[in-house]
């Protein structure tokens, strides 16, 4: 099955379920009197099911279906939960202190999930098309290696040409650039502006070099470009990893707040009735 047909099939199922839930809510809304109780329970079950995905990721060896199938369910159930959430709120803004916190937790979790899903689909393509494939944890090591290569090149150039021009240039403009990953935000937007600025400066600088130095300068620029690609990978792979640091802890916070909410609801339910 192609991704498009799978997406179409799952979207259709989601649409049907949404229609069904909406119809049920409209039909039973009046006789049940408090539709929020039902929608609340449905929402809680959905959130727990969504949470089970993170458990599945931990139980890697158990034969309980492929993680990708679970993620499909997680994504579409996530969209469904947003609809149920609004139904639960009866399409109004929350006004109580705890209510606002709980709703914020849910909304940020859901939004971070949606954003994460978009990242997961878009960023890998960009990573594939830029530079070499690198493992995130090894990027600091590669950065060090490039810096070492650049420094060795500068030393060699200085010794062979008896000129400190390239060394001075490196010290003034590039030492910091080679030291650690730079400009994550630029890379996130896919901007080549910083490289363009460096290239212009480099070309200007090269006008004052002799032939021998120019060869070294050219090699140095290759390293600048390599480092730029490495920074790109660092920034984008970092984004792919860090969005989960918002989504997952908030899920735990949401479940905790949801439990408190449930207790409060049932504690005061009699009074309301």
């Amino acid at each position, binding site marked *: *099955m*192609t*991704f498009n047909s799978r997406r179409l099939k799952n979207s259709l199922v989601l649409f049907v379920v949404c229609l069904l839930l909406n119809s049920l809510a409209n039909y039973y809304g009046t006789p049940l009197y408090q539709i929020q109780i039902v929608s609340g329970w449905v929402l809680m079950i959905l959130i727990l099911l969504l949470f089970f995905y993170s458990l599945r*990721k*931990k*139980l*890697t*060896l*158990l*034969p*309980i279906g*492929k*993680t*990708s199938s*679970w*993620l499909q369910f997680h994504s579409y159930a996530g969209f469904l939960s947003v609809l149920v959430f609004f139904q639960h709120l009866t399409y109004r803004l929350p006004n109580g202190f705890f209510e606002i916190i709980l709703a914020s937790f849910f909304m940020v979790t859901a939004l971070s999930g949606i954003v994460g899903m978009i*990242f*997961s*689909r878009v*960023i*890998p*393509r960009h*990573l*594939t098309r830029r530079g070499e*494939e690198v*493992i*995130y944890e090894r990027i600091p090591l590669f950065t060090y290696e490039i810096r070492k290569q650049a420094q060795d090149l500068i030393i060699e150039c200085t010794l062979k040409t008896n000129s400190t021009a390239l060394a001075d240039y490196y010290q003034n403009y590039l030492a910091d650039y080679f030291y650690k990953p730079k400009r994550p935000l630029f890379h996130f937007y896919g901007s080549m502006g910083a490289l363009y600025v460096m290239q212009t400066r480099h070309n200007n600088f090269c006008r004052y070099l002799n032939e021998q130095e120019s060869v070294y300068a050219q090699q140095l620029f290759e390293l600048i470009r390599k480092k730029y690609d490495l920074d790109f990978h660092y920034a984008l*792979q970092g984004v*792919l*990893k860090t969005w989960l640091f918002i989504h997952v802890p908030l899920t735990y916070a949401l479940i905790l707040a949801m439990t408190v909410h449930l207790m409060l609801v049932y504690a005061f339910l009699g009074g309301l009735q």
Partner: protein
Amino acid sequence: MITKDNYWDPQMNAELVQHILLFELFNNMIKDELPDYSSSADMFKINSDDIESVLAFDLSDKLEEPRLPDNNPLIDIIYKHTRLVKYKKGDIIIRDGDYGNSAFFIASGKVGVIFPPGLQEKQLGHVSDQKMSLLKTLKKLWCNPFYPEQRSQTGNNQTLNSTVSIKEGRLHLNNVKDILDKNEYTELGSGDIFGEIGALGRTPRTSTVVANIYCELLEIRWQGLRDLRQLSQEFRKSIDSLYRENSLIAHLYSLPLLSSLSKSAIQLIAQDTLFKTYGSFEWQTDYKTNLENDSLSLLKSETLIVAEGDCSDSVYLVRSGFTRVSYKYNNGFQVVQYLGQGDVFGLETIVYNWKNKANLPMQTSLHALGYADVLQVPKYIFERMVLPNMKVDEINEYLASDVLQQFSKHADDSPVKGLNLNDAVLDFMSDYRFINGSSTMLIDTDRCTRCDDCVTACAVGHNNNPRFNRHGYRYDHFMVANACMHCNDPVCMIGCPTGAIQRKPYEGQIVINDDICIGCSTCANACPYENIRMVDARDSDGLIIRDKETQKPVLKATKCNLCIDQLGGPACERACPHDALKRVDIQDFPEMINWMNR
């Protein structure tokens, strides 16, 4: 000229040659007088009369390096391709299911050849097929060792169970007499040879051979066998007749194309079938060097089996190894497909010629990819026995094949078809020899979020040690990761002294029995894809275990075992949340392309 560097074994010396020259066959070959032997067993019988005369030679003087005769191929073969190996009573020499590239000539002693079903799995040191229970799987999630590569039992001398132990780096049956008595076996003695068919055909061993008493065996590697086959007509005849009797008929029977034929027809085909090995069995040694070449020179370096435009007079059946089918495309070559074990080449043209009474030459070329063992069946056999019985649908299928369509396009002078993903992937898979893989790990880097869930899942399943690297050669946005591909031609299995690396008979996974791995690195060095890693074994305190005698760190070979012991199959594939990873059988090209084109 022989130099010390090209000796197979540095121990090879005049003493060994002297030992070998005791045998009548070799003596007569030196004298260029080939005796008339009726069977392979007779060929190597010691002629007691000759022993004294051979011993009387001052061999050390005759065989000094500068005087080694360039014109005496036998001594050249002995020097380059043989070695004398000593086995103690109970040592397992070859195991059923093992791959090997050597035959063994018994210089002294006796060996027992155990017929199937043969020894039990634990007696052969095989990895059990048993899956882990649900409870154990759950326990594994939390109770994996803290330190990497932790082991409890290691060493080159250890007892595995009541019947098997490892002695001096070899698998040893503790009570060989009892074991042999319980199994059906035959005894081979001095002058006999075994293992030659498996070595020449690169097929798995069909029996287990155990040293009955202390033995001295002359191990002849496949290059030596090949050269001996060329050198001695008698040897060739003997090997060929053995092959025809034991393997060829069974192989022809197994081919779907010939399955409808009678036994007598198959025997007739077997009589007229030529078989030949193209390329080199040790293709993996040049793998890295070849990758540096461009596609055209790579293709040119491959051994040609049939050229485009050659007369279409035979059908070629690939018995083992791989071949590349290609046609000329501008100034290069375009790969049409690759063929592996059981595939047929050249039948389309023969069907076309037969049907249209035409004389169309071969439309494509066939090259050996590394090595290929090919059976050549003359076309008249097909025209008489196979084609008349073929169904119309099947004939039409052959007539509609790509190979002939390609021809018609050329003939009409119409534009040649453009390159598409299929063609390019074919080229990539052939150039890098990934066609060898039966469970190759393919990663779609356009979907992979680099979350490393696959690596984590792999580590959890293997005591916190991942068995692959999420890194490897890439074509477009598909990466072939550094994970064992469970090759169809498992070069890693050749030469393992204890048989620790083995192929499971039903599903074909290549697995390593950690208990009997002695860390010799033969498999890791042989794997051209660098998918086997040698690791230092550690104790429960995380300290590197050292061999008691040599004080060297104990090494173990590690690789992906396709989660053979786990309930749900490969954990890496199941753990990928984005459907970015799949274990694919590259032989199943359409399925792979479907997955790539999702």
